[in-house]
C-alpha cells in the first residue's frame, strides 16, 4: 500500500504539487488523468522517490520512505520517451536491474528470455536499442520494468509516442503483464479513452492537485466538478449555461431542457449544464428526452459512428451517433438531449448533482 500524506512539491517559486493525499492499494491499477503540465509527472516522481516532497510523508506498506533514495525503493518506471541504455544490447538492457541486484547468471538469463518472450523481443536480444523501431524500444523499456519485479510500477504516458494501433495492443497487454505480480500500478495519460480502457481507479489532476479519485467508471459517471467532467470527455463535453426554474432549464424566457428527476431537487437559479456527446442524438432515445433545434457545422464519419458538430445558439456541441450520418453543413436539425444523463455544475464549477445511471 502506498500512502501519500499531505505531500507538496515546491521548486523555487513554482508549486508543482499542492497538498495531496492519496492511498493506492496493492494489486490495483491506478490511472493519473490530466492534461499536459497538470502535475502527473511530478506526482510520479515523488512516488518513485526521484524527487523529495517539500512537505508531507510517503509511506509504503506502512513504512515511511519519504527520504529514501530511489535506488533502495524497489520501483520500476517507464517513460513516454523511449529510454534505454544506448550502449547496451537489448539483452543487457533488460538484464541490467538484475545485474545490479546481483542475481546469478542462470536466473538472469531465464528472466530476460521470459520477459523478451512476453514482449515479443526474442529476435532482437542482440540488437542495439537505437536500431529498433519505437514500439520495440518501448517494449525493451517495459521488459526492464518487468524483470525488476517491483512493488510499485510507474508508467508515465508510456504509449503516447507510439502508433495508434500499436498503442491499442500494448494497452491491452500491459495490465495483464503486471497484474500477476500484485504490484501497485500507476499509469499517467492525457487521454480519457485510455483511462476508460484500462479501468481500475482514476485520479483526475488539474494544476498540481488531484481533483477526484475513485473507480474509473465512477469518476467518469459522477464527476465532482466541471474540470473532471471535461477531462473525461472525448469528444469534448457539451456545455451550456442555463437557469433552472421549476421543471425547466431556461435560457432567457425559453425552456431549453426539461429538468430530469435526478436534478429535480437542485435549487432554482443559474447553473452550468453538461452532457456527453453520445447523449445528444438524432432520434428520441427515451420518452423524457428534450428536443432542441441546432444548426450543423460539419459531419465527420469514423466508420461505425459519426461525429456531428452543431451550433446551438452560440454554443458549439458535438454529437456522437452510431452509424453513418452525413448531414450537409448549415442545415437545421432537430436533436434530442437525453436528460437522464445531464450533469449540473454551480458557479464554482463543483457538481450540484451528478448524473446517475440508476435514473434510467
Amino acid at each position, binding site marked *: 500500500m502506498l500512502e501519500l500524506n499531505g505531500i507538496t512539491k515546491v521548486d523555487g517559486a513554482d508549486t508543482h504539487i499542492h497538498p495531496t493525499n492519496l492511498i493506492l492499494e496493492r494489486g490495483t491499477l491506478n490511472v493519473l488523468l490530466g*492534461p*499536459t503540465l497538470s502535475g502527473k509527472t511530478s506526482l510520479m516522481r515523488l512516488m518513485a522517490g526521484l524527487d523529495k516532497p517539500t512537505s508531507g510523508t510517503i509511506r509504503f506498506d506502512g513504512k515511511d520512505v519519504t527520504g529514501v533514495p530511489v535506488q533502495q525503493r524497489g520501483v520500476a518506471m517507464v517513460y513516454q520517451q523511449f529510454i534505454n541504455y544506448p550502449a547496451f544490447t537489448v539483452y543487457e538492457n533488460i538484464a541490467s536491474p538484475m545485474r545490479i541486484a546481483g542475481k546469478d547468471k542462470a536466473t538472469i538469463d531465464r528472466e530476460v528470455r521470459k520477459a523478451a518472450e512476453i514482449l515479443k523481443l526474442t529476435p532482437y536480444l542482440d540488437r542495439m536499442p537505437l536500431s529498433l*523501431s*519505437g514500439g520495440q524500444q518501448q517494449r525493451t523499456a517495459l521488459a526492464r520494468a518487468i524483470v525488476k519485479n517491483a512493488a510499485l510500477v510507474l508508467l508515465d504516458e508510456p504509449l503516447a509516442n507510439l*502508433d*495508434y*494501433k*500499436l498503442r*491499442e495492443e500494448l494497452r491491452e497487454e500491459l495490465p495483464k503483464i503486471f497484474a500477476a505480480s500484485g504490484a501497485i500500478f500507476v499509469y499517467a495519460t*492525457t*487521454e480519457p*479513452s485510455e483511462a*476508460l*480502457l484500462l*479501468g481500475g481507479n482514476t485520479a483526475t489532476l488539474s494544476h498540481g492537485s488531484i481533483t477526484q479519485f475513485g473507480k474509473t*467508471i465512477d469518476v*467518469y*459517471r459522477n464527476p465532482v466538478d466541471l474540470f473532471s467532467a*471535461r477531462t*473525461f470527455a*472525448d*469528444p*469534448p463535453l457539451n456545455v451550456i449555461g442555463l437557469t433552472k426554474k421549476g421543471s425547466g432549464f431556461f435560457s432567457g424566457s425559453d425552456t431549453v431542457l426539461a429538468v430530469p428527476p435526478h436534478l429535480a431537487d437542485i435549487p432554482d437559479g443559474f447553473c452550468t449544464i453538461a452532457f*456527453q456527446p*453520445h447523449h445528444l442524438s438524432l432520434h428520441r432515445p427515451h420518452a423524457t428526452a428534450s428536443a432542441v433545434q441546432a444548426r450543423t*457545422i*460539419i459531419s*465527420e*464519419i*469514423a*466508420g*461505425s459512428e459519426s*461525429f456531428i*458538430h452543431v451550433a446551438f445558439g452560440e454554443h458549439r456541441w*458535438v454529437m*456522437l451517433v*452510431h452509424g*453513418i450520418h452525413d448531414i450537409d*453543413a448549415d442545415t437545421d436539425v432537430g436533436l434530442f438531449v437525453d436528460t437522464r444523463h445531464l450533469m449540473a455544475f454551480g458557479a464554482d464549477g463543483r457538481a450540484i448533482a451528478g448524473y446517475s445511471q440508476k435514473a*434510467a
Partner: protein
Amino acid sequence: MARINLDHIRHAYGVRLSAPDDYALKEVHHEWDDGGAYALLGPSGCGKTTLLNIISGLVQPSEGRILFDGEDVTNLPTQERNIAQVFQFPVIYDTMTVYDNLAFPLRNRKVPEPEVDRRVREIIEMIGLSDWAKKKAQGLTADQKQKISLGRGLVRSDVSAILFDEPLTVIDPHMKWVLRSQLKRLHKQFGFTMVYVTHDQTEALTFADKVVVMYDGEIVQIGTPAELFEKPKHTFVGYFIGSPGMNVIPARIDGRTVEMGGQTIDLGFAPKIASGARTELGIRPEFIRLGRVGMPVTISKVEDIGRQKIVRAQFADKPIAIVVHEDGEIPSEPRVTFDQASINIYADSWRVGGEA
C-alpha cells in the same frame, strides 16, 4: 485544384534493388479526383510519407510518373508544382510576426497586397490567432505554432493540392477536434484537393472522403470510411480500422454456409474460393449481438468504457470482442448472433465476394 495521377510509381531509397522488398514504396497506380479529400493511413514505415513526398516533389520516385491534371510533373521541383504542405512538427519563421508568417507564401508569389491582407485575415481568424497577429511567432506554444503551419498551408487559394503530414501530432486532444473539423469544413467550402497522412484511424476516417490504407509499401485498399468499415478488402484493413478491430475467425466454407468450431452460419451467398486457400470469417465487434439466443460464448472480461462496453469472449476457442451499448445488459448464459449482412469472408486474407 488538380486531379492527381500516380502512374506506376515505385520508390526505393538507396541503390540496391535486388528484390521487390527493397522498395520502400511498391507499385502505386491510381488516379485521385480533383477536389477529393484523401487520407493515407497505415502504421509507421508503411511508405505513406514517401508517397506524400513524391506528390510534393521532395522525393523523386525511382520509377513511374506523376501527373497533375494530366500534365507530367515528375521532374518538376516542389516550387513549380504549386502545392502546399503542412509538416508533422511546426515549421515557422521565428523572426516574423504571425501575420507575416501567413503572408509569406503569398508575398513570395507576388500576390497584390490587398489580396494578401484579405486572405491572411481570413485564415488568421479561422485558426483563432487574431489576437496574436502582430506578435513574433517565436514565443508561441507548440499548439499555436502548428496552427500557423496549418494556416500557411491553407492561405493560398490557387494550389493544386494541400498535403498534410500527421499535422495534429503536437496538438492537444481537445484542440484536435476543433482543428480537424475546421479543416474538413474548409475542404467542403473551397474544394481543395487534400492529402492527409496519419497513423490515427479516427483522424483518417473523419477527415477523408476516401481513405488509402497502406501496409508495407503497398496500398491495400482505397475506399470511403463506410466501405473500409463494412467491407474491408483485407484482414489487415479489418484489424487496422476500428477499435477494437475486426474479429477474424478461421472458418470452413461450404457453399453458402460457413462453419467454425462446430457452429454453422448461413451466409446468404456462396463465396468464390480457390481450392486450398486459408479461409476466415471477419465480423466487426459492433455487428455481433449479445443475447440469450444464438451461439454460445464464454465471457472472459467486460470493459466498461463509459458510452459502451467491450466484451472480451471466447468463441469457438478463439478470442473475440463484442461491443455492447452503454445500457445493454450482459446475460449470464451469453449467446451471440452475427449480423448476416456484415459478415465478410476472406481467402488467404483477401476478401471474397459472392457469385452473384
